[in-house]
């Protein structure tokens, strides 16, 4: 039997943990059948050789309430106290204890084979028990199972759940709505640098991957043909029926026992390749999403226009980044300047016009009276963001107005202007 072969390979030879969902996905069988297959495998192997295979079980049912009499008594007391201390509560406020006592708390509990009897003892009535997973050794930590689940998710990310769900025993929904709109391919300029930065994003289950390539229409057919072919070949030879080269890997590896040794080495590689593609998609997705903020540009069909605007934006972004960089470096300075700079100037404001003139020479135009200077000003705009703008401002440096002079110098959180200013101060000290 195919399933026994598969389980024997996976569990006994490979020492892997197989959950019923992994089995169901691998063999394309209904989840309920997979549970039974696991049970059969577990009992047969252990009949051959005890303790060779361990299992975990899922028990669902109604659990016994923990120590009912004690808590109930307490609860009643509490209730009284609360009611007294808050009489504003109208009489219609139902006494919640009555319903909460009769309230059914159903439980779905995962337990090890070793604990199964204990776990069952905590139940008042049991609705179902089924095997959750089989593994060659007893699990010390049940959390290991999450890794198995994740592996399954990664390995079968290609399968479209809308198509395959029926075979796996998933509850179907007739009304499900999924967007199939093909997204414009990412502009090459944008994707190249960004993939690097985003490569830290763990790529998981990239089933979306095929969407941008516009393959959504082909996909269902593919899946169908594949699942049917897989079903046909279940009892016979599997490897023959592998049409889609894209999926070949996962199908081959999961269902074909001999490929097993290779799987471990190839899984990282496999997940690495999709992750590259996924990153591109991700990147594209985020860009497109950003655009969706503006309803007008949401039209994905106007790909060319979008691309143009993207380029523009990119340039803007770049410019912004450069600005930021400049700011970044200067931030520590800017913090200190306001403290240091004004004090020396403020002390001798009226008597030292000569020093201030020197600043003028560094900055540019040398005129007495007024001059135009490019200033960076950081202001809070209407939305509360800090915005740094370069503005041409007229500055007067006549002797009778020292105060407005200093202010701009203080406000300026910029590098190029401030540095010479500092030099000034040094020279000021030097002259003294």
């Amino acid at each position, binding site marked *: 039997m195919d399933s026994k072969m598969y389980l024997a390979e996976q569990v006994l030879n490979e020492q892997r943990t197989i959950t*019923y*969902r992994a089995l169901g996905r691998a063999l394309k069988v209904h989840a*309920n*059948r997979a*549970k*039974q297959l696991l*049970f*059969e495998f577990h009992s047969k192997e252990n009949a051959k050789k005890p303790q060779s295979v361990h299992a975990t079980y899922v028990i669902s049912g109604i659990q016994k309430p923990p120590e009912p009499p004690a808590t109930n008594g307490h609860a009643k007391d509490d209730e009284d106290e*609360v009611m007294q201390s*808050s009489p504003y509560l*109208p009489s219609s*406020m*139902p006494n919640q204890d009555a319903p909460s006592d009769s*309230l*059914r708390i*159903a*439980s*779905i*509990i*995962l337990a090890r084979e070793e*604990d199964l009897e*204990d*776990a069952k003892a905590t139940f008042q*009535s049991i*609705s*179902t*028990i*089924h095997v959750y997973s089989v593994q060659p050794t007893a699990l010390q930590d049940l*959390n290991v*199972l*999450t890794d198995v*689940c994740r592996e399954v998710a990664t390995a079968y990310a290609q399968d479209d*759940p809308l198509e395959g769900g029926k075979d796996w*025993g*998933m*509850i*179907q*929904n007739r009304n*499900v*709505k*999924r*967007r199939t709109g093909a997204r414009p391919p990412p502009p090459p300029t944008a994707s190249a640098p960004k993939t690097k*930065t985003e490569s*830290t*994003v763990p790529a*998981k*289950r990239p*089933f*979306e991957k095929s969407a941008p390539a516009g393959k959504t229409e082909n996909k269902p057919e593919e899946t169908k043909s594949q699942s049917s072919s897989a079903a046909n070949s279940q009892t016979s030879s599997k490897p023959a029926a592998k049409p889609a080269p894209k999926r070949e890997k996962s199908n081959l590896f999961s269902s074909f026992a001999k490929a097993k040794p290779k799987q471990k080495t190839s899984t990282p590689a496999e997940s690495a390749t999709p992750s590259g593609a996924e990153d591109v*998609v991700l990147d594209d997705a985020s860009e497109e*999403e*950003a655009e969706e*903020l503006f309803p*007008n540009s*949401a039209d994905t069909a106007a790909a060319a226009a979008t691309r143009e605007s993207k380029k523009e934006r990119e340039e803007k972004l770049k410019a912004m980044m450069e600005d*930021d960089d400049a700011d*970044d470096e200067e*931030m520590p300075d800017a913090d200190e300047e306001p403290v240091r700079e004004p004090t020396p100037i403020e002390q001798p404001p009226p008597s030292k016009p000569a020093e201030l003139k020197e600043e003028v020479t560094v900055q540019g135009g040398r005129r007495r009276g007024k001059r135009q200077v490019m200033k960076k000003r950081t202001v809070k705009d*209407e*939305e509360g963001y800090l915005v740094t703008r370069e503005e041409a401002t007229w500055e007067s440096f006549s002797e009778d107005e020292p105060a407005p002079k200093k202010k701009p110098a203080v406000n300026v959180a910029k590098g190029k202007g401030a540095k010479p200013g500092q030099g000034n101060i040094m020279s000021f000290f030097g002259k003294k």
Partner: protein
Amino acid sequence: MAPDEDFGFLRPPSNEEYEPAYRTPSSYNPLDTFRLPMGGVRHYQQQYGDMYFLRLAKLKPAVEQIAAAAWDGFNIAGENARRVDRVLDVRQGELCWVAGTIYMDMPLKPNILDDLTKENFTSAPPPRRAYVDPSNPSATQIMMEDESGRLCLTGAFLSSVHLATGAIIAALGTENSNGEFEVIDIKLPDLPPQPKRWERDETDKNQNGKDAVSKEGGKIAFVSGLGITGASSDTLALELLTDYLLGYTGFSGNDENSPSMNASKITRLIIAGNSLGASVTTDAASAGSDAAAKKKLAPKKYGYDASAYNASPITKLDNFLAEILPSIPVTLMPGEKDPANVSLPQQGIHRAMLPQSRAYCAPPPSGEDKQEPGWFDSVTNPWEGDVEGWRVWGCSGQNVDDVLRYLEFPGEDSSLDTEREESEARLQIMDAMLRWRCGVPTAPDTIWSYPFQDDDPFVLESCPHIFFAGNQPSFKTAMVETDIPLRFDEGNTEMTNGPGTTAARVRLISIPKFKETGELVLVDTETLEAEVIRFGTFAGQEEKK
């Protein structure tokens, strides 16, 4: 194992064909009550005072009507209670009643002046446990204000009621020689008029949907506080939840209790906040103090920092959603720990963060026309909408948490008794909110809030059928009904139905944190009864060793 105890699965496979199960369809009609204007239209420079005046303007008529019905002709020692329009018109020694907004001055409340001293901080301060100073209860002052001014409330009666800033009440009493208003009794606006089931849908096109749904009872599933951190340890219960929602595990159909537990009856999953576990806010706050030290060492970098950003929680959430979405529609509300804005109403988690699930979203908004809600709907917090015809109003729990801070609670020790008491109190707070007709009374005072200008959406205009709060310590539920004796004279039973309204019934649900309890709440769409399904692992001897 005995063959009769095989529970359907502990037996070799048979050739049984499994019928595909189909999920009960969901009827869903969300309201945009809390959606903020987009982009440039959204301003933050307005004054918050407008919100209080709007709230008062909306609720004063309602509470005055109730108060007038109760206190007209109320007579103490030959003096009739007189209605006073403004709080400043209260005259000393006169028995009167007046309506206004409650403001509570408490010693430990966050103070704007404290905040101004550290004006530059960029993230939320860590939340305080309570605003009450237990060592000095007299420092708490309760005041009533309206557009004219403020009136200090006093009297033994106040210690027997719980109030919070922002609630609109009417108080009966008299001003004493200290200029304080001695309160004898108060009245609340009480439950707003409740729409009938399917009220909004009947006018809509949803006629056929209604017929299909109402025949077979379904369930609405609520979960909150998934707390996905990206660590492997927290996801096993989530896996079990996924399996259950997708119908892989569950309760077999031959038991008397099981049909209602069948996952295919669940028409919709509502995730009420805190889907992510890592507390972004507190991390950022603590990082803020560290950052001051670090600043001198390295030039500060802004924006995306790959080394500090851990994408795995949101990726996990995305995987979870993408896995269940093919089978079940999901409404996702952000919570205080989710990547959304901090101030209420929180806007939906942007779908760009959920690259896989976004395929199930509604198409991007285009133009002005109202669009169909998405299969996967990332909504606001708080959120209001019609699910299976019932009006649902819910919040991710910030509202309840914050009002609780106004109440005196021995919250420091976490014994079983106080825990029970606290969750009891949380339900009472939810009840009080309904009667205050205000879902988030303490915004904008102690909950960050958008400065609404034209409307206070936190006022409950119509009474929901299901009122839930997420991220509570334990599951609690209760049914609240219109308080007939409060509103009408006892003899006048014909009046109980009121003018044009039937008695409102509201199902209150406090949804526990899934991460801590592993509990999923199911609400029956016909009876509004709530049930709980708990997911977990059995810690047996192996683990205890």
